[in-house]
């Protein structure tokens, strides 16, 4: 015995000689791993179905990739433009816009962007829609001009021959694939039977870029053979842009690859090239393209992530100079948040006021009567929410039961019937009724655990009924009130069917607005921002509650 204890001067070791601590940690780790493996399917399920949607929602409230995905080049060029000035952007921006928008229109992605930008700048949606249709006309000018010089310019086979051949320029092809993949969301991989030649992409960079984009689109989206198809108008416009570059004629003269003869024929007639004024072309399509506001909106919402939705959700907006308040007449969300909070509090308090006595009765009646009452409390759960809400409509409306009774009793005049529905009062009444069981049940389960001997003890110590209740019974039921209040308040804050049906215009909640943006205006980003703020407010209140009351003091039972 004493020998063994004297030997133990160093760290304790297990039977196999490893330090005891390590051995213990290892055996515990094995246990933990096994436990984790057992719950893993459930954990993954919960993560996927519960947390993932929440994070997706949080993410949508700041995500803004659609602008830079649809107009990648425009966004880059526009960055240098001074949005607070009075000048519309220059020709280079419009050129970038033309090629971006043309491709987007072919891929039918431009209206989505229009819808997105319309949340920030009313009218942009129709601008994008109408312009998308008329971009073809812009390129036709140069197509006609080229075909007048040589009919071959109208033939897909000639274009194919000119653009390919010789060593290939892989960069142009892969960037075209990336550009289309970003735009459409499809992968854009696979053989397209075409590779732009290095010589031509050096000579006519813009043309090579647009032709390759067209080729990828034609081969993969339309599933046609590139060599047999005629290129779209943007390619002619691209060629015009390249030709209009100063000094291009000399480069063409030095070029000897496929189509050199045709190109040199064109270069000889450069004087008659219709002027490349894409800004003017856009102005012809719609005067609004020269409006500073529209361009400012595009510039402000160019980044991949934006605070715009959140600012919007608190009645502000993103201007060229940063965040600014919205005009008075457009402010709505802060007021709705405030109303939602105040009314949810009112509902919570009326649930406490009505639920407390009921829960007390439930906890103190003999078992048989208590069971019967419990059924009555739970009865509303068995009827449809819509039925209950509609019942309140019948009760509260101006020609409804309550008003009829009051008029019959002579308490109110027939021509002065009370307005009790389609306002805040109606919402509070109906929601209190619907959420009452969520207050009663936790209260009841807490009250059930308070033995009657406490009240007796208090009375035997000289407390009146009221003092005994207030000083002894009530403090012990507070955890139940806390649990019920959190439950009711959080349910109320996110409720939307009942306020929608009986709230009218003054009794609706922020959740009605969220629902509207989700299902009607389809502004999911704003809906997500509103939802995120709501979540934040609830968490904040939860934290405050924890600070004041202590979350340990919340009991749902036992």
């Amino acid at each position: 015995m004493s020998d063994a204890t004297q030997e133990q001067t160093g760290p304790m070791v297990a039977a196999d000689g490893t330090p005891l601590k390590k051995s213990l940690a290892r055996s515990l780790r094995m246990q933990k791993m096994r436990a984790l493996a057992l719950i893993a399917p459930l954990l993954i399920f919960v993560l996927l179905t519960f947390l993932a949607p929440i994070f997706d929602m949080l993410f949508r409230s700041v995500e803004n990739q659609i602008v830079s995905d649809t107009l990648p080049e425009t966004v880059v060029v526009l960055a240098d433009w001074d949005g607070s000035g009075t000048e519309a952007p220059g020709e280079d921006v419009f050129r970038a816009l033309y090629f971006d928008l043309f491709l987007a229109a072919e891929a039918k992605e431009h209206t989505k962007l229009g819808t997105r930008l319309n949340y920030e700048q009313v009218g942009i949606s129709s601008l994008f829609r109408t312009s998308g249709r008329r971009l073809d006309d812009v390129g036709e000018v140069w197509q006609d001009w080229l075909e007048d010089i040589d009919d071959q310019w109208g033939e897909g086979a000639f274009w194919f021959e000119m653009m390919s051949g010789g060593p290939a320029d892989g960069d142009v092809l892969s960037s075209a694939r990336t550009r289309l993949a970003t735009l459409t969301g499809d992968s854009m991989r696979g053989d397209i039977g075409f590779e732009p030649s290095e010589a031509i992409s050096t000579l006519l960079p813009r043309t090579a870029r647009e032709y390759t984009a067209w080729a990828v689109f034609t081969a993969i989206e339309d599933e046609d053979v590139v060599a047999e198809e005629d290129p779209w108008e943007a390619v002619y416009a691209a060629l015009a842009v390249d030709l209009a570059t100063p000094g291009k004629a000399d480069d063409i003269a030095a070029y000897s690859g496929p189509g050199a003869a045709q190109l040199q024929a064109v270069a000889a007639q450069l004087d008659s090239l219709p002027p490349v004024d894409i800004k003017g072309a856009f102005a012809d399509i719609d005067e609004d393209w020269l409006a500073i506001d529209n361009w400012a909106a595009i510039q402000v919402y160019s980044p991949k992530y934006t605070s715009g939705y959140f600012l919007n959700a608190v009645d502000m907006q993103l201007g060229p100079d940063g965040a600014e308040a919205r005009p008075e007449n457009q402010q709505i969300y802060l007021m709705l948040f405030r109303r939602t909070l105040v009314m949810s509090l009112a509902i919570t308090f009326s649930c406490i006021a009505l639920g407390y006595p009921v829960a007390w009765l439930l906890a103190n009646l003999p078992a048989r009567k208590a069971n019967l009452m419990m059924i009555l409390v739970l009865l509303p759960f068995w009827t449809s929410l819509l039925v209950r809400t509609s019942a309140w409509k019948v009760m509260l409306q101006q020609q409804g039961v309550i008003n009829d009774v009051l008029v019959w009793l002579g308490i109110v005049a027939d021509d002065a019937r009370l307005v009790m529905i389609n306002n805040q009062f109606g919402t509070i009444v109906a929601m209190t009724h619907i959420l009452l069981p969520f207050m009663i049940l936790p209260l009841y389960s807490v009250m059930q655990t308070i033995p009657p001997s406490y009240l007796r003890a208090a009375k035997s110590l000289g407390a009146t009924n009221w003092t005994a209740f207030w000083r002894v019974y009530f403090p012990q039921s507070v955890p139940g009130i806390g649990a019920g209040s959190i439950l009711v308040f959080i349910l109320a804050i996110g409720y939307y069917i009942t306020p929608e049906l009986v709230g009218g215009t003054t009794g609706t909640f922020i959740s009605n607005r969220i629902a509207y943006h989700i299902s009607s205006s389809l502004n999911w980003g704003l809906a997500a921002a509103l939802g995120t703020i709501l979540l934040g407010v609830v968490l904040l209140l939860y934290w405050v509650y924890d600070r004041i009351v202590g979350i340990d003091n919340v009991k749902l039972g036992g």
Partner: protein
Amino acid sequence: MADMNGDSAFVEFDRVQKSYDGETLVVKDLNLTLPKGEFLTMLGPSGSGKTTCLMMLAGFETATYGDIRLGGVSINNIPPHKRGIGMVFQNYALFPHMTVAENLSFPLEVRKMGKAEREQKVKRALDMVQMGAFGGRRPAQLSGGQQQRIALARALVFEAELVLMDEPLGALDKQLREHMQFEIKRIADSLGITVVYVTHDQTEALTMSDRVAVFNDGRIQQLAPPDKLYEEPENSFVAQFIGENNTLEGVVKEINGNRAVVQLDGGEIIDARPVNVTKPGERTRVSIRPERVEYNKDRRQEGVHTLKAEVLEFIYMGDIFRTRLRVAGNDEFVIKTRNAPDQARLQPGQQIEIGWLPDDCRALDA
């Protein structure tokens, strides 16, 4: 007992009856008078109506019939909080959300006492139960025995003259219980308060009380000081219930003053003191305490009846020997003898002769 000196009557139950359901009487015709300063214990089997009596006194139940008087005044219509009766509950009923000191100052607060006075009284009460250092703790942070002391201090802190205790030590282990019995008795004596104490435990009743009221079936079977209760039980229920007891059944043959001759069912004849029997021919149960039975011839007095017995079992218990015998067909007849150098240790199977003083053997109701 009901007609004690009227002046000293502090608590009085006057023909009190109680029924919860209107069909059965839980308390039947209870008459009880307590003088000031007495420590009275209600003892009885479960369901005999002890708690009910206490609750009626405290005001949480109303008597169906009869009068309860406190200090000569009927309290039937006085609500509990105005009765000024201290109460200790079986589960202590310390308010869990208050500290010990707050629990104690609660009855003083509701009496609108000033802060300084309150603190002083709380301190004195805590010191009295030797819990002075625990004022800041919550009840949940105390052991059962400590909670018990606090409950006691709380019932005493507002200087109630009458304190009711309903099985206050039921939840404690044996050693602690014995310690607390002593403690409660000491405090009650030093304060001179009147205590009505309810218990299941007859040892507790016997050691603590001035008088014990034995309850059964809603009635007081006997109300007497502990020694009298033990030595002179008035009926066979009390004899059975209090302490260990041997019973033999038989028929009264004759009664001569305070001597009765009883013929046991096996035919043996013994002498007894007639308590609940009045005439020959009545059936009776004869009761003898185990320690009053003597088998050692030298120690037996002359001229007593003896019975033949066979030793069935001998148990050495340290201070005493406990021997089980078969006597007159009864296999459960027990005798207890003091451990002394000259005391024989009986062997199972041994045939012996036992006897007792006729006064120790009581002929009770059948």
